[in-house]
């Protein structure tokens, strides 16, 4: 079957997986458009890695369908232009870094000139370790090698599962640059990361998983759309606080949904004897939003 052109990079429909009695993934559907960077967020055990593994044919789903770059996931050719950095990244310790890349290029069935392969190692900062055995690499270096493996066969879709878990701050910045350059080259990326700041900075869209289900998804603007107003107040009477309802309070700081007329609110507060020290509009961070979403069902979390 020929690949459907113009199809999304990833199309996942109603994916489910059960390990013995525990439901790991429960009817997850999403798409990643070509050239789009999708961030996958969620607490530990939310099913993020399981979704990725089912997408890539490593784990057999109990139900659901996967299409990668226009081909059904059951066809190995759907992975011809896919690069993957697993959460558990290990490479043949008896091979050199360059040999690992050569192996992956060969398995991908593409021809990549020596020069390009070495550039790829250079891109992740391993240019001078090309002929060293992987067995002697630190965890961080192995993760960098993993990135090179994911990128070496000219992918159109790159799946990165916690790509910075073993990297120092410098390495994380490198990965961020790398992600931005991938986006520029119209390579689709699925990024699973605990580092919300990382996701916020590079992702076009975010998918939040919780207990195996999609808890929320959308562009950053859609998810963070709710704007707020932060006020620092003292001498707040009951009558004045009724004006602010509903609000969140921490010390003398109040956070409310952004009202249409901020000066009017401030005038009303002052009229009721409230002393206003500061007023600033704010936008929820992705982290706050994520916690909001996950705490929406607190009784189900232990």
């Amino acid at each position, binding site marked *: 079957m020929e690949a459907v052109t113009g199809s999304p990079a990833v199309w996942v429909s109603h994916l489910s997986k059960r390990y013995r009695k525990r439901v790991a993934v429960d009817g997850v559907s999403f798409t990643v458009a070509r050239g789009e960077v999708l961030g996958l967020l969620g607490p530990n055990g939310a099913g993020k890695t399981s979704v990725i*593994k089912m997408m*890539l*044919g*490593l*784990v*057999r789903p109990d139900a659901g369908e996967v299409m990668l770059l226009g081909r059904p996931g059951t066809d*190995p*050719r*759907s*992975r*011809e232009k*896919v690069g*993957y*950095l*697993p959460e*558990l*990244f*290990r*490479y*043949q310790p*008896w*091979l050199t870094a360059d040999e690992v890349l050569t*192996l*992956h290029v*060969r*398995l*991908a*069935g593409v021809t990549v000139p020596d020069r390009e392969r070495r550039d790829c190692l250079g891109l992740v900062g391993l240019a001078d370790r090309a002929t060293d055995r992987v067995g002697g690499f630190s965890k961080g270096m192995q993760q960098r090698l*993993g990135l090179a*493996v*994911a990128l070496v*066969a000219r992918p159109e879709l790159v799946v990165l599962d916690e790509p910075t878990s073993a990297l120092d701050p410098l390495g994380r910045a490198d990965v961020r640059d790398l992600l931005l350059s991938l986006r520029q080259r119209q390579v689709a990326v699925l990024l699973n990361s605990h580092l919300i700041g990382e996701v916020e900075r590079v992702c076009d869209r975010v998918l939040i998983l919780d207990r195996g289900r999609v808890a929320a998804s959308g562009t950053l603007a859609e998810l963070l759309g709710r704007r707020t107003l932060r006020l620092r107040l003292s001498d707040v009477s009951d009558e004045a606080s009724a004006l602010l309802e509903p609000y969140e309070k921490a010390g003398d700081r109040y956070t409310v949904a952004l009202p249409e007329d901020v000066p009017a609110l401030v005038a009303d507060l002052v009229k009721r004897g409230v002393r206003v020290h500061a007023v600033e509009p704010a936008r929820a961070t992705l982290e706050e939003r994520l916690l909001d979403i996950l705490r929406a069902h607190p009784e189900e979390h232990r």
Partner: protein
Amino acid sequence: MTVLTIATLTLREASRRRVLRSLAVLTVLLLALSAWGFSRIDAEFGGLTSGEAKVAGSTVLNLVMFGSSLIAALGTAFLAGPSVAGEVESGIALAMMTRPIRRWQVLLGKWLGLVAFGSGFVTVAGVAEFVIVHLTVGYWPPHPVTGLLLLAGQTAALLTLGLLFATAISPMASGIVAVGLFGATWIAGVVGSVGEALGNPSVAQVGVVSRMLLPTDGLWRGAMNAFQDPSLLAQIGTGVEESPFLSMAPLTPAYLTWAAIWTLLVLGLAALGFQRRDL
């Protein structure tokens, strides 16, 4: 293409891991010991007739070949485990299996690589031993090529079983179980010979059944038969039945076919097991 890539990768792994060095040391030790042993036979019993030299030579040759087949079996079984179960456990398999390849291709590639490695080892160690025996007691086995092929077959059968276990259980356990079964069938074979010697058909049946279930012992007996002097059997005649290091008859084509089918069947099962496994 994929199969060949994996096969070369497996050979490279075998040559770069410590397993090869340990195998080499063990083999050199065994060969040195046997060279010393053979030279003692010649020195202590200087007045051996040519017939007696043949008896001693072929019996001890079989003993030593059993040693090297054991080394080959241990070596490949302990390579087969880590190369599937170990890679799944460590995560090496994750990045590899997401390439546009099928799992059976990987398994077949590994199998080919391991068979090539095991056969290479058996050939090198076997030929070295033949040369030693020839130089010390002047004995040369009647069918060296057939014998070595059967030994390679024995190694292939065992490592296929190791691969099957490796798709289901941990790397160490798969090696241990495979080698344990190998030992068990050998002992069952000995028990069977005792049964034949005592004329007890039900005990003799033990050897026959175990040789069907796991053909390593059967193939080993075929190899022994190819290494020992045919006139020896004629001399001894029917007075003596099979012993662990003496085989009365060459293998039948039916048994060889069964051994090949058995190996393919186990390989097929291993591929099926690997296919269904969540990585």
